[in-house]
């Protein structure tokens, strides 16, 4: 019985993140538009875009290889698996033991590895510029993320995200300084990894500053739809991660009753909305950086995360 419930919980989690992902992106776009006094596209527009893209023919470059066609599926699969391993409304995920936070980070790394290869496959100037910048950003964001994971793992005594979430929800956690530093680092990493302003502009095209959009320039139809859906999933993933580590309120415990699961789901939607609004406000308030300012921005995350880890090494209570 409990096995079935766990399976349903895990399956529900996978479907939940998949269905919520375009909505969250639409929501952030809407808020951003409203902040600029624009009407903005309807909330459901991302779903329509995805459906239309999926129904269209794929236009493949003449020299595109088999890898180019496989890459969207690889990216989508690894992002989706990573997203479904992050607790959303409850911590009782059936398969959370198969991968910890380090693995989730590395899975996203796999997705990025292949995305960067996709940018290079056709052999265009824009693809190259995107891939080259993406790996530069990743080479700083990924270590920052990992060191942040170290700090959090040392506070919670585990790298297992479900265990961390449970620990953070308990009263044993207190208010360590290192946790605050880790939060700032994680937010910076999340902004960079999702290609949001000030690192990259998700709404841009035909600019020499673009990173993500330059890599996927040659993709079309269902391939593009999958890549778009993956980036929407990634946004949900990072917000869920921030929520489960730093906003553990309301999350249902494992083996929880139905009503607390419902409460957890409601709390989760509220958290997503709050983070979405915060992201929109932040993006509206700040200008995009030059590419070579990004290393300083990410370097700050790296240093904060390292400081948090160092504090944990030096003292168990900081």
């Amino acid at each position: 019985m409990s096995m079935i419930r766990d399976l349903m919980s895990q399956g529900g989690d996978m479907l939940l993140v998949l269905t919520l992902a375009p909505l969250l992106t639409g929501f952030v776009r809407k808020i951003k538009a409203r902040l600029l006094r624009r009407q903005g596209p309807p909330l459901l527009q991302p779903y329509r875009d995805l459906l239309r893209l999926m129904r269209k023919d794929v236009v493949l470059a003449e020299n595109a290889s088999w890898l180019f066609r496989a890459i969207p599926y690889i990216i989508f699969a690894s992002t989706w698996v990573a997203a479904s391993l992050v607790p959303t409304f409850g911590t009782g995920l059936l398969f959370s033991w198969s991968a910890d936070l380090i693995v989730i980070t590395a899975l996203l790394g796999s997705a990025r590895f292949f995305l960067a290869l996709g940018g290079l496959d056709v052999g265009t100037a824009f693809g190259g510029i995107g891939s080259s910048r993406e790996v530069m950003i990743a080479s700083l964001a990924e270590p920052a993320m990992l060191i942040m994971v170290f700090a959090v793992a040392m506070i919670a005594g585990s790298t297992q995200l479900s265990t961390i979430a449970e620990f953070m929800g308990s009263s044993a956690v207190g208010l360590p300084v290192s946790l605050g530093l880790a939060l700032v680092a994680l937010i910076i990493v999340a902004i960079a990894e999702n290609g949001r302003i000030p690192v990259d502009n998700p709404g841009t095209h035909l600019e020499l500053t673009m990173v993500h959009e330059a890599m996927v320039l040659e993709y079309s139809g269902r391939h593009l739809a999958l890549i778009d859906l993956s980036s929407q999933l990634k946004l949900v993933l990072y917000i869920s991660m921030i929520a489960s580590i730093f906003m553990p309120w309301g999350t249902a415990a494992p083996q929880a009753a139905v009503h607390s699961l419902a409460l957890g789901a409601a709390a989760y939607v509220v958290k997503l909305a709050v983070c979405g609004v915060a992201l929109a406000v932040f993006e509206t308030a700040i200008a995009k950086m030059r590419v070579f300012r990004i290393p300083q921005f990410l370097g700050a995350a790296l240093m904060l995360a390292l400081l948090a880890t160092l504090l944990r090494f030096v003292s168990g209570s900081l």
Partner: protein
Amino acid sequence: MITAALVCVAVLLALAPVAIALAAQMRGSAIIYSASLLACLALLVIALFALLDPAHPILSTTLPVGLPWLGAHFRIDALAAFFLAIVNFGGAAASLFALGYGRHESAPGRVLPFYPAYLAAMNLVVLADDAFTFLVAWEFMSLTSWALVVSHHRESENIRAGFVYLLMASFGTLALLLAFGMLAGSGGHYDFATIRAAHPAAVLSTTVLLLALIGAGSKAGLVPLHAWLPLAHPAAPSHVSGLMSGVMTKVAIYGFVRIVFDLLGPPEWWWSMVVLAIAAPSATLGVLYALMQRDIKRVLAYSTIENIGIIFVGLGLALAFKAQAMDWIAALAFTAALFHVLNHATFKSLLFFGAGCVLNATGERDMEKLGGLIHRMPQTAFAVLIGCVAISALPPFNGFVSEWLTFQAILLSPELPSWGLKLIIPAVGGLLALAAALAAACFVKLFGIVFLGRARNAVASTAREADGFSRATLLGLAALCLVAGIFPGLFIDALAPVAKAMVGNSMPHQAGLQWLTIVPIAKSRSSYNGLLLFAFVLLSGSIAALAIHRLASDRFRRAPFWDCGLPDASPAIQYTASGFSQPIRRVFGTTIFAAREIGEMPPPGSPAPARLVVDMHDLIWDALYAPIAKATGFVTERINVLQFLTIRRYLTLVFVTLIVLLVVLTI
């Protein structure tokens, strides 16, 4: 069984003179490589039997050769068995690859005789059980590999590589010679059993540690003793490059582990600080150097330095925990290091062999002249892609598992009592994370520039797929990368006796766990299941593909590429290898390589092209090696005068020397 092992080694040795006779013949290389393959496979089987036998018997024998009062001692314990397996696994893969690759060798007479001798030498190092045999085998290994490095001696670069390698190898052996001399003491007890029983004084053992780090570290390629490695490894024929990078560096690690973990007795806590302080920067610097290269084999050679750094981080952590008697965490760190030894041997051999296939097909090592090879060499490309993903430490492949285990050991380090370690280990973790991320960038570049995109010159556009033997080797190694990644528990269990012998404990038994998960310490702390992860990714990818193809659309058409409306058919518009790493060079290179970009604009009105010159320095070479070379040159030039004296002056010189010596003696 040890007799059988020694017979196999003798066969390999005997193949060397046979090869001289056969080198001129057509079938010579096929005979030599298949005989080497068989000998290596036999040795591999022996090693695996010794490693996996639940009774763990220690086999030893003494042959009446070498020093008359000593003889030559040989022994297979768990540690030797593991490294014997690595050496012969790599040797067998290289021999199989060479069955196809060796046919294209332009000068087989300079490669064939040394190849089996080189394999035999590496085996002897691992089997040796006394200092004399160990050092002779070690030097034999250096010399045979040197001969292979300079086998294409008409290229001036290779001669320089051979010269630097010979110098550094001699220097490393000297350090090891002194280390063993100190261990043996004035009594001259050279066999390992006596050395193991005697516990040297603290000062002595510290000196031995440093000498072992220099001797074995220079062979393994730790920064700053790495200078020879990126010159020598690419210069050899590709199957030998694979052996040097994938296997010989592991023999060096064996030497370090044997001396420091086995012979030297209980470690001091701060030894690990020395090891970690060298290992972690090696990892990061190695991969940064790799990113700056455009020669495909040199990228791989520098990446070896990175991986050796990762292995030594594991060993350093194991030392730290062993010194504090936290042997269960020491076992974790040690197992992580050994697992990475296996993983690196697998994917680095694979990548070097892949580079060899590319070199054969195009005659080109410069990445900026290649491109689009995925269309011409699909199977090679597929295998190399797997190797690239595995070496970038991405799940579900093997490189990730060993790094994950190393990270788990780092996360347990706050339990160490010493403050020095508490402060250094977070930095080590940071450098390791940085190295992992940069490695991914490096191998996106390698695969993307060489195999993807469009051919940058004519040879790349007409390249032909590699031969059957080469492809079989590549695909087999790629399959092993996946198997070790999704069934890591099997490999961790196989390493248990080695960890038990070296650090006194082993990781918990993994094989019985649910769904082949690996749990290094406790389930609540961390666990990883590569198999499940792989199945999930495969499943969700297939479901997505199936659903979209069924429900939405499965059609595609071909068209010229778009490139934002600016299509240009010239392959020159593509990013180059140097262009690809330019952002990273700007971020890290300005301090680490003193990199500067100098733009030279022609004066207004002049039709001359503008030029961009990148000025980079190897600061370690400038700071360490160049002064030594300069000082040596200065001294030899001064002494050179002595070569052109008259007989009278020579006699005077001899007389004065005699007087001085007598005076010294009397005082």
